[in-house]
Every structure is written in C-alpha cells, then in structure tokens.
C-alpha cells in the first residue's frame, strides 16, 4: 500500500460531511428521547473474554500502583456503560471509537465507530422497536423485519439449530460444500456461524433491515436466557443487505452467571490455544451492586454510512483506514 499518494484520505469531502451529518442526526434522535450522551474511557484495565474478539493492549508505566500495568483499548464501551447504569440507573448512549485486533477488509477496519446505548426498563423487543425508529431517521428505512434464529435456519436450510444434532448440522454443512482449510477448527457453534454467514446472511434483510433474535443459549454472550425457552438467549442481531449492523441484548443482571460465562470463555480460549483474558472485576462489581433491568445494543456506524450513501468499501467512509493511518 506504499504509494506516493498514501498521505491522502480515502474518503471524499462529501463523505466527511455525510459522517458529520449522521452524528448530528444521532445526537438529535437521543436528545429528543432524553437519553444521555456519556463519554467513558477508551483505554481501560478491563477487557472482554469473548473467544473471537481481541483487544489491543499497551503497557502503562506510570501507574500509581508503582507497577507496570496492561491497559486495553475498548472493543466496545459495554462494561463502562454498565458501570454507569449500576450507579445512575438512567438511559445512556456513547458514540465513540472502538478497537479490535482484526484484519482489514471491505467491511472491516480495526478501529471503527460504534454507537452503543442502554434503555432502562425496556426489553430487547422494545429496543428493536426503537432501533427501527432510529433506522427510519438515519437511513430512511420504512420498516424492519423480525425472524428468530431458528426460523431463519428452518426457512433457508431446513435445519433446526436448537434441536438438531451436531451430526445433522455437519451433514448440512457438507451439503453446502463449504470447503475449509485443514487448519480451520470447527465445532457445533462454529458450523452454525459459518452456515449463517454463507447461506442465510445473503438471503435476509435484502429489502428491509432484518432482526434475527432468540440466539442459541450457547451464543448468549451478555444476554439473559429466555424465561420461556431456556434453549435461547434474549439476544438479537441486525442485518441489512448482507451487512451485520448491530448486536443487542436484554441484559444479563446476574453477576454470578456473568462470571461463569467469562470463565467458560476462558476455557474455550484454552481449547483454541488462545491467550486467556483477565476478568474485569470492576464490571463484575457493578453487576453485583446491581444494574437496572435494561436492554442495550451496539451498532456499527461506518456501515450505516456505507448503506445510507451506497458506498461499497469501508475505506470510502474513513478519512484514513488502517492501511494509511
């Protein structure tokens, strides 16, 4: 990527204006709904244990502890926002940069802009309603669709992701002729995720943004387990035109359960030979003190910009993507 021109931005002046306008529209939307904009640290002692999310880290040599400390760039402001929720019990949002130690691609830059918000007293379905309102305001989407994770697999692959055996999933996987390199380790959830990416994502949300909800409990992350069907979690994702736009939860409030999930993540990390991550005790402390019943969601704003204005590569909406940063 080293060319004499690589000091130049990859986004046009028009795209920079479009980003500024989008930020204004987002702030106006939340101001009208009395959701408070907050600012939490980008650099933190805590990080996530998610098996397939890695944060950048750096060494802090000036700690008041006298020891060198590892600080992580946030992969999402979730833990900090929940600490605010535990203290102030009020709906909040943050519009900021997040960082993930990942590759660069058409839809990916390791540094990107995330809009994350928490609504006290709402469940994930009420939050999906609010997201629909936001999409109408931001990208003019006149409606949205909803489908459960199970319905999506049944409709497009004739597979039940909640009750079919791993063997049956493997059979459908082979029928779809997904050819993995020998080094690709794949398990039950890994196969479901690849089937979703290859076979379902291109077929949903083509006309209107589509929410997929009731994810398998094994992919619950920080969501509550559903009170009627313990096989699923109160988690949703949002897809539009083949692009993943958002991930949301009816938030888990149980500190002990959250700790168990973190420890489970670390066990999985070991099986993949990934580094284990320290648990964010400040976040767990906030859960122990108690966060209000709430729903929250994180949305990729660079992708919203791409969809709104018809850009095909993320670098068209970034002043300087990582290749030129």
């Amino acid at each position, binding site marked *: 990527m080293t060319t004499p021109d690589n000091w130049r931005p990859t986004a046009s002046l028009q795209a920079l204006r479009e980003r500024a306008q989008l930020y204004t529209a987002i702030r106006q939307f939340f101001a009208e709904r009395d959701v408070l904009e907050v600012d939490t640290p980008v650099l933190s002692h805590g990080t996530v244990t998610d098996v*397939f999310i890695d944060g950048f880290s750096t060494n802090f040599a000036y700690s008041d502890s006298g020891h060198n400390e590892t600080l992580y760039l946030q992969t999402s402001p979730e833990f900090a926002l929940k600490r605010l929720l535990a203290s102030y019990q009020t709906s909040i949002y943050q519009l900021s940069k997040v960082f993930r130690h990942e590759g660069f691609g058409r839809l*990916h830059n390791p540094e990107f802009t995330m809009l994350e918000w928490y609504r006290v007293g709402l469940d994930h379905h009420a939050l999906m309603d609010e997201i629909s309102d936001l999409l109408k305001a931001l990208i003019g989407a006149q409606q949205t669709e909803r489908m459960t994770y199970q319905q999506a697999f049944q409709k497009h692959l004739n597979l039940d992701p909640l009750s079919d055996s791993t063997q049956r999933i493997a059979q459908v996987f082979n029928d779809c002729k997904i050819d993995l*390199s020998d080094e690709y*380790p794949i398990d039950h959830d890994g196969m479901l*995720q*690849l089937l979703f990416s290859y076979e379902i994502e291109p077929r949903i949300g083509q006309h209107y943004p589509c929410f997929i909800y009731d994810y398998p409990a094994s*992919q619950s*992350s920080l969501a509550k387990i559903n009170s009627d069907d313990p096989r699923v979690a109160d988690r949703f*994702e949002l897809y539009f035109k083949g692009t993943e736009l958002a991930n949301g939860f009816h938030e888990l409030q149980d500190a002990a359960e959250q700790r168990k999930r973190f420890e489970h993540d670390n066990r999985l990390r070991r099986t993949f030979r990934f580094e284990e991550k320290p648990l964010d005790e400040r976040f767990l402390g906030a859960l122990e003190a108690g966060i209000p019943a709430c729903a929250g969601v994180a949305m990729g704003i660079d992708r919203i910009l791409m969809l709104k204005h018809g850009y095909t590569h993320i670098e068209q909406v970034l002043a300087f993507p990582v290749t030129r940063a």
Partner: protein
Amino acid sequence: MANFSTNEFKAGLKIMLDGEPCNILENEYVKPGKGQAFNRVKIRKLISGKVLEKTFRSGESVEGADVMDTELAYLYTDGEFYHFMNNETFEQIAADEKAVGENVKWLVENDVCTITLWNGAPITVSPPNFVELEITETDPGLKGDTAGTGGKPATLSTGAVVRVPLFVQTGEVIKVDTRTGEYVSRVQK
C-alpha cells in the same frame, strides 16, 4: 517459496493448494461480530483451470506458488512440443500439449503469447486476444447478405472452426477474438 498469511491475500496472488499452483480471484475477509474470523477465497487452479471456493482461518499461512507470466513468440511445433522464443533474449522454451490445451487452435507463428511458468516450466499458454487466420474451408455464401444474420461455419488454417458472415469466402484472412472464439472482421491482405 515464501509463505503468505491470509492478511496478504488479494486478487492475483499465486498460492499452492492440493499440490497445484492457484491464482486468487477474489478474497473476502469475513468476521461476524462475535464469531470466528475467516477468509472466503475464490481460486482458479492454474493447471486444471478449475475455479473453486475455499475458506481459510484468518491468520493462517499458505505456501506461495512460484508462478510468473512471460511474453513469448510462438515459433513452431515439432509434433510433440510447441516452441516459443523470447524476442529480446532469444531464449527458447518448449511447452507440451497439456500446457497448450485447446489454445493450440489459436497459435499463429510469430504471435506473442502469454506463457505461465510454474517453477520455470510452462503450465498454460494464452494466445493474444485477437489473432488473424486464413479460412481454408467454408460454403460459398448467398449473395447480398450482410454481417449479423446467423452466418455459417468456417474452418481456419489451424483447424479452428468459427461462425462467419455469409459473404466471407475461403482464402480470406479474418480476425478472431480468442476469448470468445467469435469472428471480428475481415482483414485486408
């Protein structure tokens, strides 16, 4: 040959797969928010010509293929090998029937072809996009016909058969698009 990480994948990169040199046609980095990262890659196998899709774990390394394209002029065939020459160094290379394949019907003496070499040996021979060949046999056409009405088959000096307009006659030289095998125009001798 060096190894390439999936991070270096891009269209045109040559890698080894199942013991065969391949050309990457498309590479997409895929990373569901909470899921595993992978590279979904469309590949053309350079010997068999087969196009296939493969999924790599992101960060994985694969062996590069020592593949290069070179521009060489076609000289002649001795019946077994097809001989080509570098017009600048006068170095000659012989390609076998397998490397030439179907393109044998587009080989015209002194035309510059693209020869793909793997570890220095020719694996494919691509003719120029347009070649000029003489018609050795075609039915006499109907009078008054103009190009564009179905046409008729014509056999060329190399054995290639293309559809030509009815007014084109045996003994004439025509220009053919080798990528589609279609007649382009007559050539004034």
